């Protein structure tokens, strides 16, 4: 009897496997991402994570076309047109920056194509501008900042000094922090985008009497700020989203980053099987630790592959439904979409630590559990 049951189970598994193989259709995916110029490290990570998942998959009918947008919105629009009109792709993905996403995504989904965002999550596309063919596999832009606001409450900060570059994502960041943070503000400062000298701001921080500093300064700006902050001798604790403390950047910040708390939906040491396999195989394939962006690229590819297992990409309704259920092993653990096709997910607090010679992050707490973004109600879906 036991044998029979075992046999029945494996037979069932076989038929399931066979049936899923029967449905595992091909697709042509267009990836527009930043591979040259400033900020190309992020695009390279997304691409490498994405291609790792594609190469690990059994589905050999997936074709990926990759092009470099050089972080120029006009070029991204042109590549999107080319991929749709000339390459005839079914799915687009890859864009890193919100301003490029805003240039490309509305017209792509208006033409009936699918777009899966592996990084940018502008609020317009999460709220009133949400679209059934647009899926965000990373986060809504405000999420990580909101988590830091919640964390500041949890540890009892009462007087934060907050700063970000003077552009929309910077304003979203401070708005996100303030949405959850309940204490007072010792100062709120917008710096020039691309600024690399923060001496004046650090002097103001010292004079402000703040008990904590929250900053969002992506890329080189964050590196410059952290180094100068560490050298200034100001010892007010610093908080920030993962972007300024991620694997690609930590090496350049150096020990100045040690001990800083940052928020992220993913970390190297997140304890689940999919993640352990991902971190190990990424290191093996590329010889470096994966970053947040690589994990998002990896998840995006696996989401697409999982949907292709169940539905034909040409059958838009079925494929959309298959994406929406999100039945794949995310490296973040549980993963599901809210009504606006943005993730509902845990956001953790990480701390920068030194593992041997390498700076990396380890999870020290949970900031927000199964967090939904603030714009979901505005979305009509």
């Amino acid at each position, binding site marked *: 009897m036991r044998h029979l049951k075992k046999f029945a189970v494996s037979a069932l598994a076989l038929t399931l496997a066979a049936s899923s193989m029967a449905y595992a259709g091909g697709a042509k995916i267009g990836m527009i991402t930043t*591979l*040259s*110029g*400033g900020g*190309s*490290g992020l695009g*390279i990570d997304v691409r490498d994570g994405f291609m790792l998942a594609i190469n690990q998959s059994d589905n050999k009918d997936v074709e990926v076309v990759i092009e470099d947008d050089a972080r120029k919105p006009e070029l991204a629009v042109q590549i999107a047109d080319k991929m749709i009109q000339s390459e005839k792709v079914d799915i687009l993905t890859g864009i890193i920056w919100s301003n490029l996403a805003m240039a490309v995504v509305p017209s792509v989904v208006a033409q009936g194509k699918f777009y899966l965002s592996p990084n940018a999550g502008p609020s317009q596309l999460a709220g009133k501008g949400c679209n059934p063919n647009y899926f965000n596999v990373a986060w809504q832009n405000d999420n990580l900042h909101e988590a830091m606001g919640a964390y500041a409450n949890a540890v009892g900060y009462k007087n934060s000094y907050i700063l970000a570059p*003077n552009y929309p994502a910077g*304003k979203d960041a*401070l708005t996100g922090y303030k949405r959850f943070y309940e204490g007072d*503000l010792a100062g*709120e*400062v*917008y*710096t*020039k985008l*691309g600024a*690399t*000298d923060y*001496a*004046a701001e650090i*002097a*103001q921080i*010292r*004079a402000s009497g703040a008990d904590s500093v929250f900053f969002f300064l992506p*890329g*080189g*700006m964050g*590196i*410059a700020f952290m*180094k*100068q902050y560490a*050298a*200034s*001798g100001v010892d007010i604790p610093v908080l920030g989203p993962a972007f300024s403390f991620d694997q*690609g*950047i930590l*090496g*350049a*910040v*150096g*020990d*100045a980053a040690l001990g800083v708390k940052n928020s992220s939906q993913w970390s190297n040491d997140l304890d689940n099987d999919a993640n352990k396999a991902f971190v190990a195989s990424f290191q093996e394939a590329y010889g470096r630790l994966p970053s947040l962006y690589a994990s998002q690229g990896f998840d995006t590819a696996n989401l697409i592959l999982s949907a292709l297992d169940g539905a034909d990409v040409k059958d838009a309704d079925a494929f959309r439904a298959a994406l929406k259920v999100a039945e794949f092993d995310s490296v973040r653990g549980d993963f599901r979409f809210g009504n606006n096709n943005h993730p509902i997910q845990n956001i953790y607090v990480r701390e920068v630590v030194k593992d041997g010679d390498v700076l990396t992050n380890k999870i020290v707490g949970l900031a927000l559990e199964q967090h939904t973004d603030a714009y979901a109600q505005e979305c009509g879906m």
Partner: protein
Amino acid sequence: MTAALFFEQLLNGMQFGVTLFLMAAGLTLVFGVMGLINLAHGSLYMIGAFACAAVAAATGSFWLGLVASIVAAAFAGAIIEVSVIRRLYDRDHLDQVLATFALILIISEGCRFVFGSFPLFLDVPAILAGPVILPGGLPYPIYRLSIIVVGGLVALGLYLLIAKTRLGIRIRAGEADREMIAALGVDIRTLYTIVFALGAGLAGFAGAMVGALQSVQVGMGEPVLILAFVVIVIGGIGSIKGALIASILVGVVDTLGRVSLPSMFGLFMDPSAASSIGSSISSMLIYVLMAVVLIFKPEGLVSQNG
């Protein structure tokens, strides 16, 4: 703003100005002597920073890196001068702009090809790390203070070089009358290469000094380049003295503007909007300064022959 904070911001402005001066000095020297506009000056700055970071990482010594930055940038400058720039002296400025713009593309992508797309690590040396307490109890980073000192020394050194040495005499003669010094038997080709390499070395040195404070990455030279242009336009193209005055002016105006404008707007609007609009206006401040200077002194503060 308290007096101590104001003084600190003034120091910050000076320090920012001094780093601009290191960039602008080479740019203006090359223009003054050879009449060449060099957009690739920012790329030499980047080469200096990368060389310093690479050597510091390999040897563990910031000081060796600093030496490497000057050597590498001067060497790269000499190669560029001999292979490309030399052909441009007799061309109009348009060709110079285009050719040096092409050099930016080549050097940036080449650098990315060699060093990859991720920012490199470069930190201030241990003995200059941390703050020092200034008279009045104000803590201030030693490294920034030393940038101000070094910038002053470089300015003095350049002055002595041009006023007191044989090379300086030739440089001044080259500015005044190109044919004559050739007639006097000075090898003008070598002189030009030396001047260009000197300017490049200064840019590389600036890149390394600033790289330790900021981030060493591809494209880091471009924003500084445009600021350096503003500086030499204000100071008077070709004039080292003008570059020094203008860079301190730009540094101080920019720093004080970005600190005080948001709080000024805060007097009549809510803090969040005031900060945002104040910083929008302050990011335009130095260009307004430039426009004002041009209205009254189209040739810049210190005219080239002055």
